[in-house]
């Protein structure tokens, strides 16, 4: 259908009807200084197309980003390689333009993709069942807390400061609207103090949420937590921010997690200034009816042919209204497609290679540190904290690194305002090359030896 704008006669008729002399009279509530009059923007003359492309290309070239620098930032979002096939698949009109597939009659392709996504996520996390995704890791953590409250009919949530502060912020925001408290057990160093977490569990505790590897990249034995949860009936909830590591190290399911949640951004989704990303959520089969969101199931039609449908959506808002299991009304269908495409391209061996390279890069970086800079103690995956003598030393290094196109790390106080401003959260992936790491270490040594 063509767009038919109002004619001048239409406008005049409408103005006359409401008793206005000029359209400007409709905007008198807005101060005159904010009115745009013809010519008031003082715009340059129009450019031809080639000129526009040149102008904006030059402006874009001034941007420093992960693609044209050496990039060592993490903290929940990671610079992994995204194969071109992922973009090709998700750009196909069948996926790109699809909305929530309520109707199996017309959405078999989308439903099958979601089904396979769930299968791959469940296998990667070592869990029995995964849903068709959450919006992001932070809301997935909050939903896991609510889910545990429904399952256990208890109200208290125990977590710890080695869980990404943004996940905790969102979870706290959800829980402050409900009864029951949220205990955030402090960690003294840059690792999870599991004994302190276990000590905080009581008979009212619905769940314990820890991150693995934790926010500082630390890996640790979760078996004592499983035992403590068994002893009190609390659910064990494992959060994660980069699931590529589970291509190599034990996933949450192997530790006996009841619920596993985290970000799927690392699996074929660009960082993209923080979104769109995706939240993953998986659990034990016995808890599936308290799971938020939706699940796609495999079934047979009346002719006995294989087909896919939304199952468990009976508990969602479009049917159960205010009694719905959760507030999530949709999912990240396109990002699911990106995850499924990435995981099917990489396979077990490919993902293990990504994890091995990511971990090896950090080991190489840490082993070359000058004595003025300390890496956090204990086993790490591909993220750690570097500590400097003071803020001045750290900032001198960051400045030098920036001049050499190195994003050296995230000042930890950006996430944790109480921290002494002398630490950097540093992450590696499979992306930095050996030369990038030696450049990083050279800049570090130079900055340390200036004083």
């Amino acid at each position, binding site marked *: 259908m063509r767009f038919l704008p109002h004619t001048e006669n239409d406008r005049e008729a409408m103005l006359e009807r409401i008793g206005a002399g000029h359209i400007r009279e409709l905007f008198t509530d807005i101060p005159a200084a904010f009115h745009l009059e013809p010519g008031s923007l003082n715009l340059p003359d129009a450019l031809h197309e080639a000129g526009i492309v040149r102008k904006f290309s030059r402006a874009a070239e001034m941007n420093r980003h992960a693609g044209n620098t050496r990039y060592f930032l993490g903290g929940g979002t990671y610079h992994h390689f995204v194969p071109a096939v992922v973009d090709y698949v998700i750009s196909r009109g069948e996926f790109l333009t699809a909305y929530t597939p309520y109707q199996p009659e017309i959405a078999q392709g989308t439903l099958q993709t979601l089904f396979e996504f769930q299968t791959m996520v469940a296998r990667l996390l070592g869990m029995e069942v995964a849903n068709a995704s959450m919006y992001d890791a932070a809301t997935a953590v909050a939903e896991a807390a609510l889910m545990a409250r429904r399952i256990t*009919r208890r109200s208290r949530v125990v977590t710890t400061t080695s869980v990404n502060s943004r996940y905790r912020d969102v979870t706290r925001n959800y829980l402050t609207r409900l009864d029951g408290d949220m205990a955030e057990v402090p960690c003294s160093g840059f690792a999870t103090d599991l004994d302190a977490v276990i000590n905080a569990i009581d008979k009212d505790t619905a769940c314990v949420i820890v991150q693995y590897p934790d926010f500082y990249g630390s890996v640790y034995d979760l078996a004592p937590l499983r035992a403590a949860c068994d002893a009190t009936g609390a659910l064990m909830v494992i959060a994660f921010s980069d699931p590529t590591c589970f291509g190599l190290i034990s996933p949450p399911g192997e530790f006996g997690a009841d619920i596993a949640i985290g970000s799927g951004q690392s699996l074929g989704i660009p960082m993209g200034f923080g979104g769109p990303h995706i939240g993953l959520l998986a659990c034990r089969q016995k808890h599936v*009816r308290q799971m938020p969101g939706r699940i796609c199931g495999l079934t047979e039609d009346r002719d006995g042919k294989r087909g896919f449908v939304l199952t468990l959506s*009976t*508990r969602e808002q479009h*049917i*159960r209204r205010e*009694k719905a299991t959760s507030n999530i009304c949709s999912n990240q269908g396109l990002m699911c497609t990106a995850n499924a495409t990435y995981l099917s391209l990489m396979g077990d061996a490919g993902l293990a290679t990504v994890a091995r390279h990511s971990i090896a890069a950090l080991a190489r970086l840490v082993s070359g540190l000058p004595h003025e800079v300390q890496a956090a103690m204990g086993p790490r995956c591909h993220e750690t904290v570097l500590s400097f003598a003071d803020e001045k030393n750290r900032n001198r290094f960051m400045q030098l690194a920036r001049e050499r196109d190195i994003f050296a790390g995230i000042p930890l106080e950006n996430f944790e305002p109480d921290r002494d401003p002398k630490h950097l959260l540093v992450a590696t992936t499979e992306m930095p090359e050996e030369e990038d790491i030696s450049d990083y270490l050279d800049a570090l040594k130079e900055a340390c030896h200036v004083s």
Partner: protein
Amino acid sequence: MTIPADLKYTKEHEWVRLEGDIATLGISDHAQEALGDIVFVELPEIGREIAPGEAFAVVESVKAVSDVYAPVGGEIIEVNGELEAEPEKVNTDPYGAGWIAKVKTSGASAELLDEAAYTLYLEE
């Protein structure tokens, strides 16, 4: 459709069998038929106190998830654990093997209909 004469019913289509101060609760033949194939029954916790009209269980069919409201108040003393593995018993035998919970009644009850009144209510 059957409506046994020895039971009482609610307008939300639950039934209750009163034997002394013990009440057995379930959903009516009409309710199971309207819901369709039942795939899951969420049972209440033993020991929980329920008030008349309170949602104490959830019945999930392929079409919908519905709350089951208490015809009488009291303490849950027993639940039908067999429904966890065989929820379809609510379809096949709603007044027998498909019972949901037993309550030690407090004496309080919701508006209860006898067989004749419930039959009339369904016809309306």
